[in-house]
């Protein structure tokens, strides 16, 4: 036995390991870091959310040519409606999974939140039986049955679209703010698509804007540099860049700084204005919503309303146990069990 271990140790020396990795990795991914990292600016990732440098990347040699427009707050009374939703997995049965969704709507005018709506929690049970009669594509059905993240996304998208569609025809001359981009989703119901929301907005003279807190498109970091040089709110049109990289985007794409300060966050905004005037729509947002830490307060409030609290999750579980005659089984975290933990 010892001989075998020694043999393995001998044959897997440093050089040998490099030889093993080289054909697979080295040809496309260089392992020589020194020459690439030398003198570079760096921020360390936290493994979860995307971080950006507080004062931008300082030395840019090649800045794309962009036009910066400042935004002036417009005091013209316009309802700003923030919509957000969340979904969680609550329980699992042998056949399917129980999810819960919550939505929040916050309405502001003239810099004040006027009202908010708390919708939910609503329970959804996704199993082969419940999805049998849905008009979902069978590939999507398979996906959401096996991947809970996709299932949560489907629920969130469908709930949000229903609310957005309703609001888009309920208001006239309002601005609907939604969390995330205005990109059509494969999870949308054919009758409740983002396109229909935009169409309704156009009919009822509403504007819809999708505000993304972060973007995976690294090029936008470079483009946004001029916005960090001015203190006032402003925007840069990035429609061409976005449209060349991403399909199915509704409206025009902008990089917007809502806050008043050099370090205020720069957000990607997809906007479909009723009259096509982006300056006016952004000005109305500044004039009618209050901007806290560079983000519209209606969206902040809608987010807080729509997130699940620990108490709500406990209540949901208790509701399920009480109402549906289910039997709770003792469960275990298999990952925790297998990996154990090293207490220090």
């Amino acid at each position, binding site marked *: 036995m010892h001989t075998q271990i020694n043999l393995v140790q001998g044959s897997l020396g440093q050089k040998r390991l490099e030889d093993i990795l080289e054909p697979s990795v080295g040809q496309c991914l260089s392992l020589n870091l020194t020459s690439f990292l030398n003198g570079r600016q760096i921020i360390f990732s936290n493994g979860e959310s995307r971080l950006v440098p507080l004062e931008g990347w300082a030395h840019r040699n090649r800045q794309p040519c962009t036009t910066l427009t400042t935004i002036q707050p417009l005091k013209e009374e316009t309802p700003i409606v923030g919509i957000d939703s969340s979904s969680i997995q609550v329980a699992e049965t042998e056949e399917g999974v129980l999810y819960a969704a919550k939505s929040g709507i916050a309405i502001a005018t003239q810099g004040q939140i*006027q009202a908010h709506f708390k*919708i*939910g*929690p609503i329970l959804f049970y996704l199993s082969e039986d419940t999805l049998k009669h849905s008009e979902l594509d069978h590939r999507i059905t398979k996906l959401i049955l096996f991947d809970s993240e996709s299932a949560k996304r489907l629920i969130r998208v469908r709930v949000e679209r229903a609310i957005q569609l309703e609001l888009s025809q309920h208001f006239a001359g309002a601005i609907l703010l939604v969390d995330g981009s205005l990109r059509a989703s494969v999870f949308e119901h054919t009758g409740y698509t983002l396109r229909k929301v935009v169409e309704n907005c156009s009919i009822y003279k509403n504007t819809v804007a999708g505000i993304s807190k972060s973007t995976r498109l690294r090029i936008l970091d470079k483009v946004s540099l001029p916005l960090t040089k001015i203190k006032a709110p402003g925007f840069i049109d990035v429609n061409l860049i976005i449209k060349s990289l991403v399909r199915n985007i509704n409206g025009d794409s902008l990089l917007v700084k809502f806050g008043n300060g050099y370090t205020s966050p720069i957000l990607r905004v997809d906007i479909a204005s009723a009259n096509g005037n982006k300056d006016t729509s952004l000005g109305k947002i500044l004039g009618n919503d209050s901007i806290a830490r560079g983000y519209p307060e209606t969206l902040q409030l809608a987010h807080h309303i729509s997130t699940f609290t620990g*108490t709500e999750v406990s*209540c949901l579980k208790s509701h399920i146990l009480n109402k549906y005659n289910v039997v709770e089984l003792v469960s275990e975290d298999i990952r925790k069990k297998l990996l154990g933990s090293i207490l220090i």
Partner: protein
Amino acid sequence: MKILYKNNTDELILLALKSDTARKGDYLLIHDQKSNKRIIVQIYNEEYLSSQSLIEDIVKDEVIVASSIENLHDPLDIGTLSRMIRDARLFKAKIRASIDSESKFSNEITWLPSRVYSKINRMKISEINNLVNRTGLYSIRLGSSGLDEEQFEIYAEDLDGKLNIVTGKKESGKSHLSKILIKTLVEYGAFVIVFDLNNEYGGLAWNGNGTLSTLHEQVTILEPGEGLKFSLDYCGKAAISSMLKNALDMPAASLREFFRIWDWLENKNTLDMEALGNAINTWNTNELVRDALISRFHAISSSGLFVGTLNTSDDGLRFEELVSKKQGLALIMNLGKAMPVVRRMIVELVLTKVVELLEKGIIPPIFLFAEEAHLYIRDTYWEDIITRMRHFGIYTTFITNQPDAISDSVYRQVDNIFLFNFTNDTDLDKISKVSLADNETVKSIVRTLPQRQCLVIGKVVHDLPMVVKITSADIMALGQTKTFFKTGSRAQDISSVSQIQ
């Protein structure tokens, strides 16, 4: 309600929802239905069920609700459940007793009830009384107890031969309870002596509306010089010497000379105040001793506590005569207007004489109610009262708003404590250390007791502390503090002054 966990050796933490009605002091019966055994616990504290996330949720919701008008669409009605959780409480309960499967009651608890199979119910006073077999012939109705305001009574037998303390902060209801105790004891034919510092117990003779009470004939109010007057020979040498020594601090040498004079007058059958004064003035003795005797004689004389001469029809107060005439008697000694030294003289005389009469079996045992006794009873007397005098038949109830004025040795002998509200930490610390109940119960319950509610601890409740709401009594209120602003004429004066200005 559900058992959550056991905290200390004798404490259970119970989870209660808003609908579970119980309050501090209430007794709960935990019935373990598997083992058919029961545990009696008493709630002594109530807290919110709290966790960091719950507090965060509440704060978050509050901020959201405060920011704008809220509109809810909650199809599953989860909000109701959420509110239930937010309103859930933890009852801290002390284990007081257990009842085994053969219904045997015991104060020793060596088992734990099941969290799953236990049923928890609030106990009625009558149920507790049945369990501990708390009965008697002479009930004293103190008031009500528990959420259902059940009638609560103690039994005079449990005060008989016992040492009791009634304590609480000012105006918490101590005197009111004492009056109820005295009234009922007298109704049952007991003899009660009250050292009344605020001249308020005389109100027992009248109803609240000023008419004569049923006890009117049985209440005798005595004041120094007015009824509270003794002849020297009735007091006897022992009582007088005790008074001179302890109340008037007479030195031993002077005391010896005083006894010689006393014996001389006694042999001549001329022992009265007049003769005593003359004898002291003409007695052949050291001048310093004479001065000491003269100063004490003047103190005695001016106190008005003694009959002047033998030749009057006034024999002075004779306890045995008062007792023999009446079935039940409240002897109220008004000390409110008396000088501190006179108070001490009265207490020395009365207690020494009563002990003497009890020793000889001339009078039956008496109940003594002493208000703020530390103001007129010397330190060394306390032990005498709680040890020796108890055996002769003086059963004392101390009424005080200063729990630290009573020594620990008294607390160790005490049988019953009636605890009214205390908010002062020093007082609570003192009373919780020495009382018959555990520290946590006393501190938690007593701190929040409203006026006229007390925690009864001791033999009267068979060592199961009870929170009692003392009933109102139809007794004339006397001894109220004279105030400046409540006087009508004063108010008139002020208004006329302001008109002039």
